[in-house]
């Protein structure tokens, strides 16, 4: 364990960009966890007298068309967006990995059936599929999570399938059979730990997609419902005001959105450096 930490510290020190990404990630997590209790204004409190005022000392990011403080709303929205992203990715990861590893390890009919299911999902443009699912089932937070999870499932299934397929012939799998392990135990106890590092890297990358997906659905009105603060909705609200010169309404939520996705992508690269076994001495 300490060797892993030492290696992690080495990678972070070598690569300032990765360090920056981790710092940003920590900041976002803090916002999500502690933000709502620390924000200066109630994100839902409207004050039409102060509508559409630009960034100032009292309103760091300005106010929107209903006079709500954008800064507070953005911080609070972090919890919503990150929450949706983490939950849906966790679901996609758990189910996708399980399906993929079974398909890759057992082959045969298991592989064929799971393969067809995954192919079906991938046959659709993924965002359109998400739209369709939410439109059919309704605009609830849960449905957004399910839709995002479904469209991200194939990536995990395919990755897990390839990795399991490569390892099913490995010497240690045969050795495990000689030790009396059942096939299920081998898959979960021997093969899965080996593919975990790669899957973790994928998790980080998918988090970025998941946030974008949630924001995108909200942007077109199929996501979170107002007055909930969420980056996508806020960008949608602010879109109509850009032309009239009130740029801050859309700009700041968009900035946070970009920062979050950027952060997860960079973290994914950094994680890959840390867990890649070839980097170990």
């Amino acid at each position, binding site marked *: 364990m300490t060797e892993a930490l030492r290696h992690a510290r080495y990678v972070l020190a070598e690569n300032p960009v990765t360090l920056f990404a981790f710092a940003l990630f920590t900041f976002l997590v803090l916002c999500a966890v502690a933000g709502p209790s620390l924000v200066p204004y109630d994100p839902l409190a409207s004050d039409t007298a102060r509508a559409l005022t630009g960034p100032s000392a009292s309103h760091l990011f300005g106010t929107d068309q209903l006079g709500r403080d954008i800064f507070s709303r953005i911080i609070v929205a972090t919890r919503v967006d990150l929450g949706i992203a983490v939950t849906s990715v966790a679901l996609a990861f758990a189910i996708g990995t399980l399906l993929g590893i079974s398909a890759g390890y057992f082959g045969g009919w298991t592989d064929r059936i799971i393969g067809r299911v995954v192919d079906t999902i991938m046959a659709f443009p993924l965002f359109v599929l998400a739209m369709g699912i939410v439109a059919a089932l309704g605009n609830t937070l849960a449905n957004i999570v399910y839709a995002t999870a479904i469209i991200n499932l194939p990536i995990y299934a395919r990755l897990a399938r390839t990795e399991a397929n490569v390892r099913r012939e490995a*010497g*240690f799998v045969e*050795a495990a059979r*000689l*030790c009396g392990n059942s096939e299920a135990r081998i898959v979960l106890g021997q093969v899965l*730990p080996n593919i975990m590092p790669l899957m973790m890297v994928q998790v980080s990358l998918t988090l970025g997609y998941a946030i974008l997906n949630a924001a995108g659905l909200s942007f077109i009105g199929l996501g979170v419902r107002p007055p909930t603060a969420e980056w996508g909705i806020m960008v949608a609200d602010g879109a109509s005001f850009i032309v009239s010169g009130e740029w801050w309404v859309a700009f700041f939520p968009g900035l946070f959105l970009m920062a979050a996705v950027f952060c997860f992508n960079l973290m994914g690269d950094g994680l890959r450096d840390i867990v890649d*076994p070839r980097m170990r001495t």
Partner: protein
Amino acid sequence: MLTAPLLEVSGLRKLYPMVAAKGWRRAPASSLHAVDGVGLTIGKGETVGLVGESGCGKSTLVRLLARLIDPSAGTIRFAGADIGTVPARRFGRGKERAHIQMVFQDATDSLNPRFTAFRAIADPLRRLSRLTGTALRARVEEVARLTGLPPELLGRFPHQLSGGQKARVGIARAIAVEPRLLILDEPTSALDVSVQAVILQLLEDLKQRLGLSYLFVSHDLNVVRLLCDRILVMYLGHIVESGPAEAVFAAPSHPYTKALLSAVPSLGNSATRERRLKLPGEPRSPIDPDPNVCPLYGRCFQATDACKTTMPALREVMPARHVACHLPALEAVPRAGPPLEPVAAVALRG
């Protein structure tokens, strides 16, 4: 020597179907005969060597005997009990699983890269001997000591261990559950010669101490000669010769064995090159072989008509010497060793 052998195999076959589907209909089934009618015995405390080149079926035979795959035909009896009928999938749950264990060729490949040495050795103890806690720890450390693995290395991962240390972990894992038969699949071929010597001596020592029987598979005939009491020579899924190791090395009978022995480079004996027996061409295809033709026919330097009309059976041509050949001629192969008794060429009619 009338004690029952530990392992008795007869008529063992393993066929892999090669189905060429033509549309919805299947073409007539052809199959790859990986192991084609093998019979052998291993006695208690014996080390039997298995030699043969790539494609001869020894990997398949080894996996059949370790019960990792199921035979297509034939019987495997271990300590009197028929273990060939239990499907490989269920064999892991039986009590015989602990009795037959295996040491793999490439220790790097056969150790889970995410498991420490401790965990690798503890795995069979947890599953088969049902040990936990302090009893488990004690046994792992005991076995590590037996194989010369310093206990401080138990917490290391495979990539932190040297080739010799990984080999020891593999051996420790195999002997932890007190097997009676240990199958060693080229255990030292990936090791340097200096480390190989240590590991071979360790294996011999363990065999004496723990009363094990070994099936030692190797392509290095000199190593086989060191360790083995008897050897089996395999070609294209058949056992073509078997007998006491020293006797077979000194006076091989089957043409393939002769060719094999003449190809081994030896220290300080450069005259071997002139006496090289060559087998022209490549081995025949193992797919749907003609059951009436000797597997070596076409490459053999002493073929007769009988060789392509009748498959030679493995039979005893001298006490304890079995050969599958119509013209088994026992000739002494000159070697740089103590002078041998001249052996009269024995030609039996097929």
